[in-house]
């Protein structure tokens, strides 16, 4: 990718990125430009999601190609880049003997905050993730869910521009998982921080992300913009009428819809932006029929993921 071809708004740009670990290739020629507010990294276990995150953090050196995070080369000044990133690892990450507030203060200070500001932020972030009452307890005594929240808190403490979350809902019970996803969505919606979420749970990625990179065996299997996909899917509608009404189809065609008849009472429509579901109901009423069933086509992330897993050539 040439400099002129780079998207200035891209959060992560992968430019033929390859990584070899222990003598074997783990990531092969990854190419993508991701600019979403919340980007999902999807793939089965061993696809290379965590390795990609660690490479972007400059923990692993690329064997070929390169990547840019927030417009900065990962092989450049790693310290400068990491000061803008918050990282929540998949595995345990805490100092058992320290209280949560002390641990977060240390992490914030290491990120560059002066001691006073770091302490203030540590308290704020612990309250934000719901650990306010437990902030003076040693982390070693926390439950799994609380430890996950501490990991999220330490990633947030210094106010990063990019938050890298590696399997954030691992080991959480349903309410805790819901709370974690709610927090991630809240951070996303504030619009100040980009999120790079690695997960093998499709529902988590679908509920948070607007862009998805799917990896399979260290290669890009698919890269798609979920937000655009959702917008596009809104215009695909399937309708079933109570009575056959060919004039109904003709009227819809007259409104600009693309209509395909599936049987005499069933239609598939592609609606222009100006046509709404209300127009369909009104048209049906005019033609002495009623809509018994209406379904907006939902090309779910699961469909996209399954297609990507089936298609070795990749690229959606």
């Amino acid at each position, binding site marked *: 990718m040439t400099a002129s071809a780079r998207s200035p708004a891209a959060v992560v740009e992968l430019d033929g990125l390859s990584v070899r670990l222990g003598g074997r290739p783990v990531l092969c020629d990854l190419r993508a430009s991701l600019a979403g507010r919340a980007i999902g990294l999807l793939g089965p276990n061993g696809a290379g999601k965590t390795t990609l995150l660690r490479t972007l953090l400059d*923990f692993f050196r690329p064997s070929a190609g390169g990547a840019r995070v927030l417009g900065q080369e990962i092989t450049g000044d790693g310290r400068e880049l990491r000061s803008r990133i918050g990282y929540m690892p998949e595995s345990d990450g805490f100092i058992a003997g320290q209280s949560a507030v002390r641990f977060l203060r240390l992490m914030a200070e290491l990120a560059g905050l002066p001691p006073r500001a770091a302490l203030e932020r540590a308290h*704020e972030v612990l309250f934000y993730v719901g650990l306010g009452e437990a902030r003076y307890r040693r982390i070693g005594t926390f439950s799994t869910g609380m430890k996950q929240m501490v990991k999220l808190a330490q990633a947030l403490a210094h106010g990063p521009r990019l938050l890298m979350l590696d399997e954030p809902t691992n080991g959480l019970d349903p309410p805790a998982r819901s709370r974690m996803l709610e927090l991630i969505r809240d951070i996303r919606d504030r619009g100040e921080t980009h999120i790079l979420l690695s997960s093998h749970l499709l529902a988590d990625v679908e509920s948070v992300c607007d862009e998805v990179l799917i990896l399979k065996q260290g290669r890009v299997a698919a890269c798609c913009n979920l937000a655009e996909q959702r917008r596009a899917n809104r215009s695909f509608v399937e309708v079933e009428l109570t009575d056959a009404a060919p004039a109904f189809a003709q009227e819809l065609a007259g409104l600009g819809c693309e209509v395909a008849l599936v049987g005499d009472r069933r239609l598939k429509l592609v609606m222009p932006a100006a046509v709404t579901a209300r127009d369909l109901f009104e048209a049906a009423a005019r033609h002495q029929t009623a809509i018994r069933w209406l379904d907006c086509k939902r090309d779910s992330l699961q469909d996209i993921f399954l297609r990507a897993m089936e298609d070795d050539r990749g690229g959606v």
Partner: protein
Amino acid sequence: MAVYERVWRPYAGPVTPVGRRFLVVTRYALAEAFSSRLFTAFYAACFLPSLLSLGLIYLSHNLALLGQLGLTRELMGGLTLIFFRLLFLWQAVPAFFLMAILAPGLVAPDLANGALPLYLSRPLDRRAYVLGKLAALFLVLSPPTWMMGLAVYLLQALEEGGGWGRANWRIALAYLVGHLVWILVISLLALAISAWVRFRPAALGALFALLFVLSAFGSTVNAITRSSIGDAVHLTRAIASVVQHLFGAPTSSGLPVAVNWLTLAAVGLLSIVVLNRKLRAHEVVR
């Protein structure tokens, strides 16, 4: 912002210089060390030999006080080289125990529960991390060793006068260089063992075991070969010989002092290699 509002906001305030970030690691390590009363009490006790020596020097030069106590300068004996070498030993041995207590607790807790990747995901590299830990050990061990040693030397030079300080400059050199080398080598070794073992009590045991094993192995080789070749791996004898050489005294090792220096350098380098291999954000399994 009040914490109860439970909102999160990005940080837009000032940041500390990246070059001094390792001092955060140092500061937290020191705070952790001195949070133990037992450690603090032992640390204070490590100053006793030096404080007693300062008192002795003051007393031996204060004829009026000696007279009141019914003593004479002759009874006190001369403050010979042996006195300063003994003081060195009385500083170095407690300092070693200080370091043995402190060093494993600096690295092992960071590795035990995967906190190291969190350190390294920030603007802090592995060198800065090790430098921060080493600086903590240096700051703890310096006052009761070479700093107090130099204070004793200076007091004696001032009290004695008549060019005593200039004539005995090797004492100052031995206190400064000997202690610094000892602190550096043993600190690196302790950090390396702690990084390898990852469990504080085991790291402490492994450090003592390694010193014992190396000494026993060296002595055994000496006995079998009826030579001094085993001193090449005898760490405590190597440092003792280097310090004796710095004092200008005959060395206890049968090997040239350059070999003793090489032994210390090899231990230091080996420790750095171990730290380089073990202190990684993530280990790669081959």
